[in-house]
């Protein structure tokens, strides 16, 4: 039985028992579900479960060298997130996290587009409860926007899948072309969840509105599922290189101005997705290894950074850089874990980001993509600026905010320490890490030249920040909202619609005035005709008026018809 049970499904179904369990049993039960689901990964590669329904074969459980590393890291992320959130007594987020992670893992093992669609939508409907977990009016509104966009992505996927099935007689989840309508629709569906430029607004808009635990879960699954889907279906599609390069480039500037540190991390998440999308676009074995390695390492270090900011939010009640500072003395373990996450994402040698990002940079070098290479190198300095320095510096150092919080709860610390150890372990033992990647490529990230170049790049970028701060050139963080592509559907479209409605209202009142005048004039005319000329011995009433007008119109139509015959 366990051999044919797809990973993730047990978590998804098992999540519905969570509300009936007491707090501690619930935590153990959720971890047990993750382990049970992970056991299915031992089944090896191949198609393990197909169900025929309505004359269509739903490939429920297919595993291969691409889904395997994603499945491993999704299980790790689920495990860490459950530990991180185990202080919460409320069961609703527990159900959401377990079912959301389960749906994402099951989606990795979908062998056809319709099965993928089911899980694609399941991730949307389960994760929206995490945003609602923010438990205020802002998060409620954000959740509404989130579900509309996520379901929209699912609808595009469904439309693409139907067209694909119609033209190919199968709907296997495999290689596709964007030159076909079906491929283009599916590409857009994946692009929304991968936060392509101008389709990214939902990410920065909604993730920071979730609770401290919810954001950690959200950062792990949806976007990386999209990267996996792109790698499976659109590897080697050139346009992805340029889309990815833009994704790495623009968010860094927005991250610099953003005040909410969790929102800074979502910009950073967008930027990191760009690296993966570029790698998928290159499509060589080395590059795809790079995309998978980066996704793997990224889930852990980004989760760690979100966890550290979540711990700050939990203890202090805010994540705004303008209101934080000097927390190192009160939350030293959280601060150290945050710094480990920061140096990992910045790709300092001996940390996970370095061994993952190097694969992508080298593959760009091998393909001779000079301009893109330097764009990504520039973006690497940007990552250091906003995630490597801004996050830990403004939260734990900078200036004394006067806040004196307690250290994070023990479960949060355990989760952060596990992630920190993984960040270092991946960086120190890259050859072990590379063994789980899809392709057998020999690559050595640690050579004198590579390490020196990276260290010079990062250390001098850090030194530039130090100079800007020390000489008081760096402006203070301000309470503000930074406009992003969500502005189009939060401000512009409602604004345009409002004007259109006002326009229609004005038009309507003009029509009313116009017809009232006609009505009054007709009434006067009939009054004159009938009353003043004593046709009838009384004034023309409303009913008379209508009858006369209808007759008038009928007469007019008859005259026109009569003339049109000639």
């Amino acid at each position, binding site marked *: 039985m366990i051999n044919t049970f797809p990973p993730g499904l047990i978590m998804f179904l098992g999540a519905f028992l969570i509300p009936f369990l007491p707090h501690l049993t619930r935590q153990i039960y959720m971890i047990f579900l993750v382990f049970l689901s992970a056991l299915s990964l031992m089944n090896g590669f191949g198609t393990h479960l197909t169900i025929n329904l309505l004359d269509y074969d739903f490939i429920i459980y297919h595993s291969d060298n691409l889904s395997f590393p994603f499945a491993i890291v999704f299980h790790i992320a689920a495990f860490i997130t459950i530990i991180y959130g185990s202080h919460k007594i409320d069961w609703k987020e527990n159900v959401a996290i377990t079912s959301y992670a389960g749906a994402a893992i099951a989606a990795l093992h979908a062998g056809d587009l319709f099965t993928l669609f089911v899980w694609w939508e399941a991730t949307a409907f389960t994760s929206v409860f995490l945003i609602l977990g923010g438990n205020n009016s802002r998060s409620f509104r954000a959740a509404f926007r989130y579900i509309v966009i996520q379901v929209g992505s699912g609808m595009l996927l469904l439309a693409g899948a139907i067209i694909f099935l119609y033209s190919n007689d199968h709907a296997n989840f495999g290689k596709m072309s964007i030159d076909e309508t079906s491929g283009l629709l599916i590409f857009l569906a994946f692009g929304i969840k991968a936060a392509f430029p101008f389709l990214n607004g939902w990410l920065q808009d909604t993730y920071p509105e979730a609770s401290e635990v919810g954001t950690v879960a959200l950062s792990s699954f949806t976007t990386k599922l999209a990267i996996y889907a792109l790698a499976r279906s659109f590897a080697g599609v050139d346009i992805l290189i340029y889309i990815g390069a833009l994704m790495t480039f623009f968010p860094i500037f927005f991250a610099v101005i953003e005040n909410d540190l969790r929102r800074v991390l979502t910009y950073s998440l967008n930027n990191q997705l760009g690296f993966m999308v570029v790698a998928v676009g290159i499509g060589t074995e080395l590059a795809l290894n790079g995309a998978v390695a980066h996704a793997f390492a990224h889930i852990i270090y980004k989760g760690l950074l979100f966890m550290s900011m979540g711990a700050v939010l939990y203890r202090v009640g805010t994540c705004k850089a303008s209101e934080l500072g000097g927390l190192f003395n009160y939350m030293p373990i959280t601060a150290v874990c945050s710094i480990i996450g920061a140096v990992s994402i910045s790709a300092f040698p001996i940390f996970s980001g370095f061994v993952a990002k190097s694969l992508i940079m080298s593959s760009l070098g091998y393909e001779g993509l000079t301009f893109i290479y330097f764009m990504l*190198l520039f973006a690497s300095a940007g990552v250091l600026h906003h995630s490597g320095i801004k996050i830990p510096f403004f939260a734990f150092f900078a200036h004394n905010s006067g806040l004196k919080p307690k250290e994070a709860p023990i479960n949060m610390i355990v989760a952060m320490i596990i992630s920190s150890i993984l960040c270092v372990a991946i960086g120190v033992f890259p050859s072990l890490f590379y063994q789980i990647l899809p392709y057998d490529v020999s690559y050595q990230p640690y050579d004198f030249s590579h390490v*020196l170049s990276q260290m010079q790049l990062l250390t001098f970028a*850090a030194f530039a920040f130090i100079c800007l701060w020390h000489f008081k050139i760096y402006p203070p963080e301000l309470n503000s909202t930074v406009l992003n592509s969500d502005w189009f559907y939060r401000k512009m479209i409602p604004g345009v619609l409002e004007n259109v409605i006002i326009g229609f209202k004005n038009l309507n009142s003009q029509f009313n005035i116009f017809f009232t005048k006609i009505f009054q004039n007709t009434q006067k005319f009939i009054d004159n005709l009938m009353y003043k000329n004593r046709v009838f011995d009384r004034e023309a009433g409303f009913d008379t008026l209508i009858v006369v007008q209808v007759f008038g119109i009928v007469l007019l139509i008859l005259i026109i018809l009569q003339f049109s015959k000639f």
Partner: protein
Amino acid sequence: MTIKLIKNFGKINSIVLLICIILLILEFVGHRHGEFKIEEFLFFPALFGYISCIIIFKVGVALRSIFMRDEDYYD
């Protein structure tokens, strides 16, 4: 002079400065090659990192006036 520098510039900042100097010296210890020829210019990654960070900061500050709104802009 060193003590004066540490006093003025801060302990951690001085350590970063020292690491920067060491990294520049290491350039002469072994051959540093890159993915592209231009990267092999003397101190290229150091200059690239420093200038990139300044550009990001400058552009970021310039964008404040375009993209920054009040905190309750959407409320």
